[in-house]
């Protein structure tokens, strides 16, 4: 008799003696799209002043974003991937970190950097195309932006190993995109972290898209959070446009990081283009974007604060003006930066090899770059 695959599986199920593994993934939200809070879910570490602070960081992030985009459009900045729509994921999680904790971002967590204290000047300097922008990362316990997708996750794992070994009591918080979960590096990092029981929290900033590729084309799995299960630890989903949910999940995970890693899938949306070189109208509908605009993290937090009488139009204007002033000052300062070509030669090794010195001297003496054209 011919048995279909389904029937075969059914028979196997019937004679199965015991289930060897079962797990589940939970989703949670604290503040909904209308700015209404479910008090039973609130973290004890959050109050209204913290929510106001979140709103301010998210607003600064959005303002800085639009500044780089406009600079880029004028040829005064390089290709840039904005955070628009993802501010709650970045700000909510970074605010849950202790000062000694280490931040390992990819290329999009601008908001996390700001919360951790990266000067706006450094941010703009980097996006104007100078490595010098990243010289401010070590001082804030963060690694530089990492462009090769998912490769930073293993560095985060190594940093977590270091913290555990050196007993610094610091934890590591690292981010990856939804697309990044398809890389081997992602699985290797989870597996290492799980096996070594490291103090690390992985955040998947699931903004639904990897350039033109939707999450449904990255994986047949119904959640990304469940990927933790195979690595032997817990995964959870949160509303990534709800900074309170992101904060709570991250804070809880960091608090328990001595017991091992945690994976948080933060469900958010890239409201803008992938980068300034991308045209999203080629692959997604306006209607989809409109749906997500309703869930905008800034809008919901502002609604909440206004209802509570903690925010109004005039406060908004004051904050916008302050942000604009800080941003413009940082941009001006970054535009005065004078690149020194010697720095590209002199930061390669801990010493200067003779052969490289020859190349440096030849370059400087010939002055070929004075014209700067190629």
């Amino acid at each position: 008799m011919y048995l279909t695959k389904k029937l075969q599986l059914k028979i196997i199920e019937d004679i199965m003696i015991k289930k060897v593994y079962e797990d589940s993934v939970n989703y949670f939200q604290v503040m909904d799209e209308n700015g209404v809070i479910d008090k039973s879910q609130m973290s004890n570490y959050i109050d209204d002043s913290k929510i106001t602070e979140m709103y301010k960081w998210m607003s600064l992030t959005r303002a800085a974003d639009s500044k780089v985009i406009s600079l880029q459009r004028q040829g005064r900045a390089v290709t840039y991937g904005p955070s628009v729509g993802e501010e709650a994921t970045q700000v909510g999680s970074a605010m849950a970190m202790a000062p000694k904790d280490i931040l390992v971002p990819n290329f999009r967590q601008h908001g996390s950097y700001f919360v951790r204290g990266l000067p706006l000047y450094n941010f703009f300097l980097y996006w104007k195309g100078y490595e010098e922008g990243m010289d401010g990362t070590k001082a804030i316990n963060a690694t530089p932006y990492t462009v090769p997708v998912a490769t930073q996750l293993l560095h985060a794992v190594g940093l977590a190993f270091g913290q555990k070994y050196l007993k610094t009591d610091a934890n590591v918080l690292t981010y990856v995109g939804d697309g990044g979960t398809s890389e081997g590096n992602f699985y290797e990092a989870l597996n290492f972290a799980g096996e070594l029981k490291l103090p690390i929290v992985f955040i998947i900033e699931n903004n639904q898209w990897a350039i033109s590729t939707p999450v449904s084309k990255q994986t047949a799995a119904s959640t990304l959070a469940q990927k933790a299960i195979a690595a032997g630890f817990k995964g959870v989903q949160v509303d990534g446009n709800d900074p309170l949910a992101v904060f709570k999940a991250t804070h809880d995970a960091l608090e328990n990081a001595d017991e091992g890693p945690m994976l948080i899938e933060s469900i958010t949306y890239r409201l803008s283009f992938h980068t300034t070189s991308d045209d999203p109208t080629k692959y997604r509908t306006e209607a989809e974007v409109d749906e997500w605009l309703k869930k905008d993290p800034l809008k919901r937090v502002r609604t909440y604060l206004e209802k509570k009488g903690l925010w109004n139009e005039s406060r908004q204007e004051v904050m916008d003006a302050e942000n604009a002033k800080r941003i413009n000052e940082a941009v001006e300062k970054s535009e005065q930066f004078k690149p020194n070509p010697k720095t590209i030669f002199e930061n390669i090794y801990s010493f200067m090899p003779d052969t490289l010195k020859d190349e440096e001297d030849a370059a400087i003496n010939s002055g070929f770059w004075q014209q700067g054209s190629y």
Partner: protein
Amino acid sequence: MMANMNSAINSALNIVMRDDEKAIILGEDVGKDGGVFRVTEGLLAKYGEQRVIDTPLSEAGIVGTSIGMALSGLHPVAEIQFAGFMYLAFDQLVSHAARYRSRTRSTWKVPMVVRTPVSGGVRTLEHHAESPEAYYAHSGGLIILEPSNPYDAKGLLIKAMHMEDPVLFLEPTRLYRLFRQEIPEGSYEVPIGKANIIREGTDLTIVTYGTMVPIVNNVVSKKGINAEIIDLRTINPLDEKTILQSVEKTGRVMIVHEAELSFGVGAEIAARISEKALFKLNAPIMRVASPSLPYPFPSYEQFYLPNERKVSEAIDKIMSS
């Protein structure tokens, strides 16, 4: 048809897909988006999702799977979004694509093409401006192609797809839309392993490829010197014969590439010339390349890349020695 390099490659892919049902295009964002440089534009609509595959974000996955597809008799042409991300597939290329044939004494073959944008000069982010050809050229078994114009790009890619070897097809982003050229509408091949003498001359041989070809050509035109310019087109296997013949005629040779100086393609060429034509030389071999350090962020790019002035100064120097 008039074509820039971008549309020439698109035309080659279209022909290959039309003529060979076993050809499969795969890579990140190659379908709906038509690739981040629009090189695969229109091909999904024409050939469908079975043959133009938007893959998960995984370079090792793309190349490793392409190897398997090739082993099964298909003819994949994979795209790696930027050469700077192909290092994630390095093992698949060097340990597997390059070796499959020799490990099985030619019983298993890997007829596959991996296309990837290379080189800088276009103010990109970190890792988007790499010139990694030497890493791969160092691995026997991989064919490395790098066209400098639309005509060669189309003919080389079609030829690559007609071969049964693994081919790396390097596409200089700076040349994608730099200029247009009249090229045949239909199918044609440009030979592999054969350099192109783009200008004949008697006083100096300049061996170059990729992004440096238009730069060298401009400098030579402006200076009005009688130099012979060789555009390699194929980096490995090297067309040593064409180079040696030219050097024997001119007695002076300069190698110009964008990739880092140390341990680069120029070193290989210089070594071969010194082994086989040292006594025909009237001056030491000269190399013009980027400094031996990682490609810098855009605002330092101008201090790094070989430009017309640098090539011109080098020519003055070699001609007076």
